């Protein structure tokens, strides 16, 4: 696989608790395959898995969003470590750059401000929101039935 063309994005957020391993995870592969998983045992609920293929224009847009965020320049060394409350993981392979971040859950901008790397963590915070926004739109449009 050519180093220049590599593209892979994966985001995970989750925790262990009363309702089991509750997590949200999505992943995009260079060929457009997008996988989504959402798990919780709340009220005996179970894993939801979705998979779809997005077009190359969509992958291009996803790449643009990631590049413009400049997340590839950041480093999670000084970010809050995962804890009992939960963790987030973001892994991106873009061209010949590769990041793999792991940090605790971020409750709000206050957590960002009070961290040891507010600038970097802020980039992460907003990128994650933008990615989630995109994924939820895609999943909703692709799978959801509209009520009558």
């Amino acid at each position, binding site marked *: 696989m050519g180093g220049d063309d590599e593209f892979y994005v994966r985001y995970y957020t989750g925790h262990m608790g009363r309702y089991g391993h509750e997590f949200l995870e999505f992943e995009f592969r260079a*060929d457009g395959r997008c996988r989504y998983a959402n798990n919780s045992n709340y009220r005996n609920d179970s894993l939801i898995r979705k998979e779809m293929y997005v077009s190359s224009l*969509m992958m291009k847009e996803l790449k643009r969003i990631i590049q413009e965020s400049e997340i590839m320049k950041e480093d999670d060394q000084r970010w809050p470590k995962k804890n009992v409350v939960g963790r987030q993981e973001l892994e991106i392979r873009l061209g010949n750059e590769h990041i793999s971040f792991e940090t605790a859950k971020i409750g709000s901008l206050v957590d960002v401000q009070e961290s040891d790397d507010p600038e970097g963590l802020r980039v992460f915070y907003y990128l994650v929101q933008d990615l989630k926004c*995109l994924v939820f739109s895609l999943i*909703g*449009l*692709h*799978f959801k*039935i509209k009520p009558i």
Partner: protein
Amino acid sequence: MVIIKAVEGWIVLAVGLHEETTEDEITDKFADYGEIKNLHLNLDRRTGFVKGYALVEYETFKEAKNAIDAVNGTKLLGSTLHCDFAFIRAPIGSGGGGTSSERDSRDRASKNRAGGRRRGRSTSPTRKY
């Protein structure tokens, strides 16, 4: 056994949107080609401006294709839009048969996706009448 008829439309992706684009402007741009069943114009979570893309749903393939062909390369608020379908069929040989496809033969008559549910994919919700 209830046969699931997923509500599916054809989702058009438009990128290159100007950051101040409004929903009305997108609606106006795309309404000529068919009734817009759904529209997502997501905002940048930090700035509040439009993130740069929009997802427009039409009921038929023809409407979506016409919209794509007509709008692709045109300008809105000075920014050039590029359009295409948002979703594609799983590439052959990847074992992806059964996932919903948006770009394929012009067989729009059958929207029934009951067959070929992929193992490992949760079923879509059934319509509650």
